[in-house]
């Protein structure tokens, strides 16, 4: 009984997929619908938003009133996990910082994301010529466009046709109308020379043609909790659960993959994993292995899959695996609109994604930093939750009382109680999300000294912002202040200067990390070919954000979905030709 045993299954699956988020979920969806016998391994529990979402709960249904004690985005948020997981550490080196967010659950981080669904544009795929700082993708926007179109139709996205050069339009459902605060923002931003357009989000503002399994958005504004009627996109509800229904996809949850196994010919033969429920070790076999474990975890898996054929880690003869890690930049500013004190109450929950946003609107040739950012906006009469009313002493002294008299900041009693009512719904906030340059010197590698609680060697990160990103954050802060000024808002958050890098968030905080297993035509400089197939191992594919060569200022999910669909269709074609 005390013998350490690895259980080996006799079944050989057509494909083994590691991870069930946007990338793994899409691969599972396409391959299972094509009739392949697919096994999917997910490191967290099964999660079905229809049953498990905390949607429509009031704050008082949480003893901590929605505080972020155990879930980084609050008690009702749909992400199981966070930047720190008990027993699953990661490390950093040379005094640098990277915060690594992991959601362990079916559907991964797609259960809680902002559903902001932007296509990368022609200049994002081919950006080398802009300033020589970045490498081109081996593919163009035109090659990815048909897949973006198919993703739009399959999953649903709202937005408006704008004909902007580097912000390609999609096949859109109608966008939600702006809220009152957003009208103030739009007016102020336009005065400040900043264009504002309707948001683009994967929320069904109308029924999705041809889909009877998903309900229409009912405007609770709670996409972050994941949607019980499947009115928004989660990989769980929209991809994996439908794929399971084909009978061709089997999901193993709580299965933490250790490494990709390879045979004497160097090809992938399957994976080994530990069942988190009972710590039993397993090996499963497949004709191909598809990694969709996230940019960090897929790199970790490859680097931990060392064999005589792949001494440097699998798919890593080039040595690029782990390198070129990049997260979006982020900075933000908040305040309130004195005009909106004592505003009329009505339900303006809207959708849980953005109602409006600002695509990058300037020419970097005229600026002192190389790449742009988009701006996301928020504010309004939200459900009060933990943190509500915080810092009133910083607000109520800034404006006169109703009778015009001067108010003393702080206070207590009936007049204070009334202040909370006065200020409710007057707040506005904005946040920039920008392009960070992919650099070989920003990377993750295996920490030779540290393992997690399953004995799996962990990642060590090395990531530094440069002046390119800092100056971009400075520009964000200047823009935000100018918009706040033009809309007549009073800024209440800290105004960041050089001492805090202008509020530039630490790498990893925006949770858009990409680029660790990049694609390219040259096997010496890339790990994957343009189909996300490993140069060194033709039956190994990567379908998450790891293959990204250079992210634009666009959130990664829509591109992950399009690329994963493209790779999955390539796999089906190659199977016909019997080459994988």
């Amino acid at each position, binding site marked *: 009984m005390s013998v350490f045993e690895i259980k080996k299954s006799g079944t050989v699956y057509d494909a083994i997929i590691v991870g069930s988020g946007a990338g793994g979920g899409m691969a599972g969806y396409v391959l299972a619908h094509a009739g392949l016998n697919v096994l999917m391994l997910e490191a967290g529990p099964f999660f079905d938003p229809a049953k498990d979402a905390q949607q429509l709960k009031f704050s*008082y249904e949480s003893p901590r009133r929605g505080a*972020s004690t155990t879930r980084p985005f609050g008690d009702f948020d749909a992400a199981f996990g966070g930047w720190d997981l008990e027993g699953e550490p990661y490390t950093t080196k040379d005094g640098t910082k990277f915060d690594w967010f992991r959601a362990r659950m079916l559907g991964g981080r797609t259960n809680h994301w902002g559903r902001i669904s932007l296509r990368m544009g022609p200049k994002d795929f081919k950006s080398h010529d802009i300033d020589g700082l970045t490498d081109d993708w081996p593919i163009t926007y035109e090659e990815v466009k048909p897949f973006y179109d198919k993703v739009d139709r399959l999953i649903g996205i709202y937005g408006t046709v704008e004909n902007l050069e580097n912000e390609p339009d999609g096949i859109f459902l109608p966008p939600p109308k*702006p809220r009152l605060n957003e009208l103030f923002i739009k007016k102020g931003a336009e005065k400040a020379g900043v264009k504002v357009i309707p948001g683009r989000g994967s929320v069904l503002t109308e029924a999705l043609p041809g889909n009877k399994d998903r309900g229409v958005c009912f405007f609770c504004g709670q996409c972050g909790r994941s949607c019980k009627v499947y009115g928004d996109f989660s990989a769980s509800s929209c991809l994996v659960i439908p794929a399971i229904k084909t009978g061709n996809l089997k999901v193993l949850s709580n299965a933490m993959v250790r490494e990709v196994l390879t045979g004497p010919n160097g090809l992938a033969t399957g994976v080994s994993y530990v069942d988190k429920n009972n710590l039993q070790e397993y090996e499963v076999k497949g004709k191909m292995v598809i990694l969709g474990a996230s940019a960090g975890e897929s790199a970790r898996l490859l680097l931990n899959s060392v064999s005589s054929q792949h001494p440097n880690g699998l798919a890593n003869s080039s040595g690029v695996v782990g390198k070129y890690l990049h997260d979006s930049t982020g900075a933000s500013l908040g305040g309130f609109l004195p*005009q909106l004190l004592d505003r009329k*109450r009505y339900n303006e929950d809207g959708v849980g994604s953005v109602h409006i946003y600002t695509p990058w609107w300037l020419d970097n040739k005229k600026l002192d930093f190389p790449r742009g950012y988009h701006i996301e906006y928020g*504010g309004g009469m939200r459900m009060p939750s*933990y943190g509500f009313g915080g810092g009133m002493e910083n607000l109520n002294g800034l404006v006169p009382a109703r009778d015009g008299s001067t108010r003393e900041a702080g206070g207590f009693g009936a007049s204070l109680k009334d202040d909370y009512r006065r200020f409710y719904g007057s707040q506005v906030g904005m946040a920039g999300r920008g392009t960070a340059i992919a650099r070989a010197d920003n990377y993750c590698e295996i920490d030779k000294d540290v393992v997690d609680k399953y004995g799996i060697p962990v990642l060590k990160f090395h990531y530094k912002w440069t002046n390119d990103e800092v100056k971009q954050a400075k520009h964000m802060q200047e823009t935000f202040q100018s918009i706040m000024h033009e809309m007549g808002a009073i800024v209440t958050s800290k105004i960041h200067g050089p001492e805090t890098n202008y509020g530039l968030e630490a790498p990893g905080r925006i949770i858009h990390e990409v680029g660790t297993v990049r694609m390219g035509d040259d096997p010496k400089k890339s790990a994957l070919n343009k189909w996300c197939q490993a140069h060194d191992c033709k039956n190994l594919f990567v379908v998450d954000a790891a293959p990204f060569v250079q992210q634009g200022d666009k959130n990664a999910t829509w591109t992950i979905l399009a690329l994963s669909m493209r790779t999955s269709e390539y796999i089906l074609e190659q199977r016909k030709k019997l080459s994988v």
Partner: protein
Amino acid sequence: MKRRDSLKAIGLTALASGLLLDSCKEDATKTQQASVLQSPNGDNIGRQEFEIERDKKLHAETFFTKHEMATITVLADIIIPKDDKSGSASDAKVPEFIEFIVKDIPEHQLPMRGGLRWLDLQCTKRFNHAFVDCTNAQQIEMVTAIAYPLKAKPEMKQGVTFFNRMRDLTATGFFTSKMGIADIGYVGNSPNRWTGVPEDVLKQYGMENV
């Protein structure tokens, strides 16, 4: 308050993260896999095992003494009293919320315990009684000395810091309760069809053509 909680309070729910309020400087949460309390309605569907266990454990513990709870109750009702629109902080069970939240977010424990003690000492010096045993007028005098950060005397600074926290916790506890949500007039969290800002509101702010 954590930065993400402030973000949520400001309505930036779609965003990943960001720093919006000056007063929020705490670091990232550690996701722990061991400590919880039963949610009030006993509904644990979609909760992780460690969260359920953690809630249970916290509910079984007591942090504040009876005297401290009595002080918190008096303070909370001074901060948010009953008026013609809604009840007081204690009517909305704010003291019970504060007892829970300091166990849930232990960073509150020392400043709360120490602050309550500071208050009692000040009151003993001034009035020869602990805060709860002072007259209402004495209590108001004491609170007035620490409730206005910009005009409080320098030697009251620790009291101001404590009272800011107490005010924040009271407001959060009250306005996230059923009574407080009705008071503030939040009418969402129910299925509807959002068709934009109502006409009369557009007109009120001259936003018809934006």
